[in-house]
């Protein structure tokens, strides 16, 4: 589904990713771990298509297409979803309006009819239950006045609504208490299918108690220095990142 080959990326002249290779197949959950500043968020942003990054060399293919040629919104419409580390507030735009616009545009791209108001509300209610989102949040402006935990839950809620093919969760666990963490993890697990994949980017191992990865990668100084199965995460928890360098 996703093939990253020898990817070198710089920001403002500074090289952040120095030849990353990663292959994700349908149905898999991959965890990307690593210390602060290792390039984890850069990797997420470059897959989603954020501006301000320069791809020096290498390639990313997604479902056989050259991802780097695609606009941000087209990547999203093709099924790539990013759960943000710091979700932004959009004052005055209700969650209902925001998600309706997003879903309509994605459906239009896929040649599908827009959802009726009734269908849309039914979908919202169903997904709200899935992630345990408070009823009232949908009427409020996007992330405005949400607590840290609510913002993260809201990311998973949006993911549930958009049903992505490939979800990248950028430090979704940071700042969450254990209950919120469980809710987020349950949401991710419930959405998992044999055709969809997830990349979980995290600093800590504890999220991986709830989302069990098929593969774990350690990113350090812009390179994947070690890959392994879920036991690698436990080893990292015990020994820290230092022993790998």
């Amino acid at each position, binding site marked *: 589904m996703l093939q990253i080959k020898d990817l070198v990326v710089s920001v403002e002249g500074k090289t952040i990713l120095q030849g990353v290779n990663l292959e994700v197949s349908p149905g898999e959950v991959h965890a990307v771990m690593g210390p602060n500043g290792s390039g984890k968020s850069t990797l997420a942003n470059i897959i989603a298509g954020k501006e301000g990054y320069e791809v020096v060399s290498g390639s990313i293919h997604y479902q056989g297409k050259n991802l780097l040629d695609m606009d*941000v919104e087209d990547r999203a419409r093709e099924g790539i979803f990013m759960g943000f580390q710091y979700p932004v507030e959009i004052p005055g735009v209700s969650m209902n309006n925001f998600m309706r616009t997003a879903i309509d545009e994605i459906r239009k791209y896929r040649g599908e009819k827009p959802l009726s108001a009734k269908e849309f509300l039914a979908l919202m209610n169903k997904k709200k239950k899935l992630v345990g989102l408070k009823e009232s949040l949908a009427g409020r402006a996007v992330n405005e006045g949400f607590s840290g935990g609510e913002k993260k839950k809201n990311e998973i809620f949006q993911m549930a609504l958009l049903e992505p093919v490939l979800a990248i969760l950028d430090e979704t666990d940071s700042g969450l208490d254990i209950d919120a963490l469980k809710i987020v993890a349950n949401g991710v697990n419930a959405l998992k299918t044999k055709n969809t994949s997830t990349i979980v980017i995290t600093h800590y191992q504890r999220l991986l108690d709830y989302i069990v990865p098929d593969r774990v990668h350690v990113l350090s100084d812009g390179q994947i220095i070690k890959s392994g199965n879920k036991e690698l995460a436990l080893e990292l928890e015990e020994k820290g990142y230092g022993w790998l360098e």
Partner: protein
Amino acid sequence: MNSPENNKKEHQDKVLNEVSNSEYKYGFVTDIESESIEKGLNEDVIRLISAKKKEPGWLLEYRLDAYRKWKAMKSPTWAHLNIPPIDYQDIVYYSAPKKKKAEYESLDEVDPELLDTFNKLGIPLGEQKALAGVAVDAVFDSVSVKTTFQDTLEEKGIIFCSFSEAVQNHPELVRKHLSSVVPVDDNYFAALNSAVFSDGSFCYIPKGVRSPVELSTYFRINAANTGQFERTLIVAEDDSYVSYLEGCTAPQRDENQLHAAVVEIVAMKGAEVKYSTVQNWYPGNKEGKGGIYNFVTKRGITKGANSRISWTQVETGSSITWKYPSCILLGDNSSCEFYSVAVTNNHQQADTGTKMIHIGKNTRSTIISKGISAGKSQNSYRGLVKMTRKAENARNFSQCDSLLLGDQCGAHTWPYIKTFNDSSVVEHEATTSRISEDQLFYCQQRGMDEENSIRLIVNGYAKEVLNQLPMEFAVEAQKLLSISLEGSVG
């Protein structure tokens, strides 16, 4: 290889340049025979206008008095506007679509071209509008074409007609209230309007009556070289209520056209008047050529205790806007709200805001102003809050926000606060922001394209004001915001 910053800059420039592609939808000209007088302004022209309208002597005297005062006045220069000199002798002060008879008995008698114009503007004068529950007075160039829904209103004793008809049929009401809020020599443009106003709307709500429908006036400038000078007077007697809507468009022309209107609102004891404007005069082309000069005086007075006036405006058109819908809060416990969204793009200039003059005890005013600037435009908020000595325990809350799209436009805020007593409270908040890259990225990551993302963010920003508009106007205003900002990214 280009650096990302360069790429980004290029991209922004490209998108900003695309602003020019946004078309003004209402730029067509109606090919219709009209009866105009010669260009120029002097006492004879004023006598001619007055005679054409068969006005009583007192009104002619009023006009002449205004004209003499205007001649002694100078065009204001204090606004943050670059106004090219205006040759007042090069303007036609009266133009009217030719009609076969003096009055239209039914819509069948109105020139089909004219009806077609209003249909194109989405202002059907026939049954549809009646079904929508809105009474419409349509003013084409200088005269009122048709006022709909008359019978329903008459049953309630509501008078809603063109200003000229009001002068003929209700002279005592007009005489009593005309210039009771905006004196003839209040300012340069108000004095000019008082001298040459051609038509407009008159609205009278009797005591205790709530208007069952929204009253709406639609102004259209068509003829070239013609100024439009409407006069609107709204009088709401004790405990009455009315919601009033105003819309405006003009054809696309290379020369500038002057629009200098005066609106007066009188709210008696316990009365409530909501006045909503969606102003979409032709803004000029992308180089700033052409467009309407919109120099308008709007003022209300909460004359009786517990009365209320609200001004809501969505300003997207005109090449230059000079406009400060204001309120004199005279009655104790009366209140006024001002909600404004002003959008400027390309070379548009807007200097707009409000004045709240608190005189009565416990009076309250709220000012919510949202400026949006794009292109090379200049957008200014200018507001005065005055608490007079008698205005005990009066309160004002002002919030003035500016949103910038791109880096070649300007946003300015000039709040003036004058307090002459110790018990009143004035609060002022102001912010300036840009649409952040992070907000855009967030929307686009959810599948929205750039245009739709901006549309969503801008409408969210303006929501507090748009929420004040009646439903069908709010929808129109949202669309208008999107069109006005097409292609502009910050």
